[in-house]
């Protein structure tokens, strides 16, 4: 090796771009958040305008918060730290720019579609299918750029932050693609391929792990790089970081079903989700302690350095949120907390405290380094910290109080559990109004803090010269593959083969017939014994495999993929195979008529599912309030499922036939004319906008291809059926004293609402025809 050195200039332009985008989009996300929080207090702020209505803006807020704010911040952190950790410039300037501008285009496209009701109707997966395609393309570009950079690295070892980034890239790709599998009916509409319970399970496998692998693992990687840098001391325990990574990656992916506790989801999945959620306490707190203990000996700096303040508080919020999450995943706690504001408080403790503060700390640390100019005002940054902290505490404590109050009131019973203590849902809403107002104030303070950061940034970079970091390296450093482990070597080795055999025998034991069970038990025992014997005699070869694995990006990535894929496969495949309409033994949903399907699409488009669940849990108060508990088959044809995650209003699973058509019309037109004190927006545009009948045949056709048992119908028959049912509802309204033309959207939505809770009893010889169409 020669002694010649060359200087590598890092691509810090891309870091600056993502950093600036973070500041802008965070402000937008928080501004929308404060607005929708205020709308829950003052319904007038919906302005009787469809695109400013709460249920249209809420997905905009969540998507902006997750993908625009946190997304841009993690890209900035990943690109900055990766180049330095692997001592190589990003592989491709073009891919870097494509990533940046592609991601901003996605955000703009989301902002231009969600307020107009163009949505897939799945939480955190609302973006319509053309934008989904854009996301996949841009994410692949990010992945290629990242792994290409790793392939060109001049540092053989992979620091633990890089592990977290690898897990993020591959897991998000897997989750996003599976959850967004859809069949388009038009350029702006599609139906997800999974329906009913399958849709619920896949959605929360994705939704939960979007939190895990988009909001947590990349930020942990950022923590492991930026916190030691800011504290000027190495991470407290690198060993602990290794344990943290593997146990987190293995355990996290299984926990999704905890979002569906006490519902119609099969019990074994609920138990599995709860168990793994509880086990998350260990790795999460291991990571938190590792972060906080990194500050050992540097706590005096925390008093004066805003960067360390933000990091210390951010890591503390990580610990708090990851303690609260498993707590909420305990079935009995979940019975109280689910569908209430407690969950909203939990989520915001994570996003504002963990993601927001880590992003702020990183930005304050990066600003002077990327623009080579001291931060404009450290005092202002400190003020930002305190205002933000007070804001979070107000927000979170208000939501805890509100959620627990809601839970206690909604679940309150008397007369030995036979009568609801608060039968009127609005009583519970009006009881928490002060806390809802407190949330607006808390969120507003946090937003003001962020504006301070933006001002500080502008003043810092005004007139400053952007600078790119450099590093001197030897010109001919040997490739990092001196100890490289090929693909074959990664898998054809004792640890992997023994694990695979043990897994195969274990499956035979659990799922096989009589003979297979015995063979499975014997095989599994034999396999474990042989594996132990082999390890005893050849232990060094096992350790050598692991050591070599860690310096090879590709084998490491594949192993991580296997780790995250296992949980998903074990939960999802049995659900896909067993939970189908053909296997039902109890109740089966009656497919929607064409007009009802149009109403279902409007229900999704207007975001009704964001306030109203359609899942009566297997809990006494739920049954007393809403009727017989929901069976799994009663929503088997819903693409996507409508079980919901929050009750700002009552459950609608059995609302069909409960009220006359006129009640629904008046309620949608002006909710307060029916329910005094309601905070539901007016949905008046439904009375003037017309139903999209032209696209209805295509939608029925796609539903049929997804397994919904519609009989063969021509396009004209579909439209005629819809028009006939609409005319009947319009006539009924006219007879009751209201005049609405049959082609208006409200007619379709009423038809849908009146269908909810209708089912057929399944008999052994039940055919798969569509009895509902004859109704």
């Amino acid at each position: 090796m020669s002694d010649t050195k060359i200087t590598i200039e890092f691509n810090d332009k891309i870091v600056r771009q993502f950093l600036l985008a973070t500041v802008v989009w965070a402000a937008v996300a928080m501004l929308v958040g404060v607005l929708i929080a205020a709308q829950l207090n003052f319904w007038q702020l919906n302005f009787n305008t469809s695109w400013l209505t709460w249920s249209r803006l809420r997905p905009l807020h969540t998507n902006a918060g997750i993908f625009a704010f946190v997304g841009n911040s993690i890209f900035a952190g990943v690109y900055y730290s990766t180049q330095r950790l692997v001592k190589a410039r990003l592989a491709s300037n073009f891919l870097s720019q494509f990533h940046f501008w592609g991601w901003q285009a996605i955000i703009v496209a989301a902002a231009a579609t969600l307020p107009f009701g163009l949505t897939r109707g799945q939480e955190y997966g609302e973006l319509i299918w053309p934008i989904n395609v854009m996301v996949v393309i841009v994410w692949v570009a990010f992945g290629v750029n990242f792994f290409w950079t790793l392939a060109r690295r001049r540092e053989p070892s992979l620091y633990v932050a890089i592990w977290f980034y690898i897990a993020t890239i591959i897991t998000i790709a897997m989750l996003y693609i599976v959850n967004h599998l859809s069949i388009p009916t038009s350029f702006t509409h599609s139906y997800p391929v999974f329906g009913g319970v399958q849709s619920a399970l896949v959605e929360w496998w994705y939704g939960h792990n979007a939190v895990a692998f988009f909001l947590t693992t990349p930020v942990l990687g950022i923590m492991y790089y930026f916190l030691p840098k800011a504290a000027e001391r190495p991470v407290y325990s690198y060993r602990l970081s290794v344990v943290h990574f593997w146990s987190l990656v293995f355990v996290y992916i299984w926990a999704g079903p905890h979002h569906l506790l006490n519902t119609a989801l099969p019990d074994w999945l609920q138990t599995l989700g709860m168990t793994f959620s509880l086990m998350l306490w260990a790795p999460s707190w291991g990571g938190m302690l590792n972060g906080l203990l990194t500050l050992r000996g540097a706590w005096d700096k925390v008093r004066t350095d805003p960067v360390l303040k933000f990091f210390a508080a951010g890591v503390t919020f990580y610990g708090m949120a990851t303690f609260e999450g498993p707590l909420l995943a305990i079935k009995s706690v979940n019975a109280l907390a689910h569908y209430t504001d407690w969950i909203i408080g939990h989520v915001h403790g994570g996003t504002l405290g963990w993601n927001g503060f880590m992003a702020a700390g990183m930005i304050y640390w990066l600003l002077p380094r990327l623009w080579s100019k001291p931060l404009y005002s450290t005092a202002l940054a400190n003020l930002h910290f305190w205002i933000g902290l007070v804001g979070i505490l107000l927000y979170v404590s208000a939501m805890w109080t509100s959620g627990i109050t809601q839970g206690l009131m909604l679940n309150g019973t008397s007369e030995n559990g036979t009568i609801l203590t608060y039968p009127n849902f609005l009583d519970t809403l009006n009881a928490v109004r002060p806390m809802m107002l407190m949330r607006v104030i808390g969120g507003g303070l946090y937003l003001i803090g962020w504006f301070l950061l933006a001002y500080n940034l502008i003043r810092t970079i005004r007139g400053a010269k952007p600078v790119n970091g450099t590093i001197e390296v030897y010109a001919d450093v040997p490739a990092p593959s001196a100890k490289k482990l090929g693909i074959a070597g990664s898998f054809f080795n004792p640890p992997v083969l023994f694990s695979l055999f043990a897994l195969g025998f274990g499956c035979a034991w659990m799922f096989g017939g009589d003979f297979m069970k015995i063979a499975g038990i014997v095989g599994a025992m034999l396999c474990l014994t042989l594996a132990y014997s082999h390890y005893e005699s050849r232990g060094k070869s096992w350790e050598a495999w692991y050591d070599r694995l860690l310096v090879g990006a590709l084998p490491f990535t594949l192993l991580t993929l296997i780790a995250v894929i296992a949980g998903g496969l074990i939960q999802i495949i049995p659900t896909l195979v067993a939970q189908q309409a053909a296997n039902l033994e109890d109740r089966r949903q009656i497919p929607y008529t064409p007009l009802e399907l149009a109403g279902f699409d409007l229900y999704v488009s207007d975001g009704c599912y964001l306030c109203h669940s359609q899942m009566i849990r297997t809990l006494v108060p739920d049954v007393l309030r809403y009727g017989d508990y929901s069976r799994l088959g009663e929503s088997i044809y819903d693409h996507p499922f409508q079980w919901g995650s929050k009750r700002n209003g009552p459950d609608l699973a059995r609302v069909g036939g409960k009220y006359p058509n006129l009640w629904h019309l008046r309620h949608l037109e002006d909710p307060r004319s029916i329910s005094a004190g309601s905070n539901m927006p007016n949905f008046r545009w439904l009375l003037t906008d017309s139903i999209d009948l032209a696209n209805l045949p295509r939608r029925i056709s796609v539903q049929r291809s997804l397994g919904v048992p519609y009989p063969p119908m021509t396009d004209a028959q579909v439209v005629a059926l819809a028009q006939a049912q609409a005319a009947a509802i319009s006539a009924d309204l006219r007879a009751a004293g209201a005049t609405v033309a049959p082609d208006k959207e409200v007619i379709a939505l009423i038809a849908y609402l009146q269908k909810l809770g209708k089912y057929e009893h399944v008999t052994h010889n039940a055919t798969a025809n569509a009895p509902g169409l004859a109704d």
Partner: protein
Amino acid sequence: MFQRMILHDSAVLYTIAAFSFAVSIFVAVSWRALRMRRSEIKHLADLPFATATPASHDEPKSKSTADR
């Protein structure tokens, strides 16, 4: 079949299997982490400091400190 899958009482098996699985991963990884060589640990933990990141807002400090 469908009802049986929902109502069967073998949930305890899944809990135990899940716990055993996670514990085995945890123990194996912890064991391996504990057996890592000190020199290797030091090298890895120091990687964030292998590249200087001068901070102009730390100018009063000595360069070596700021570069950490």
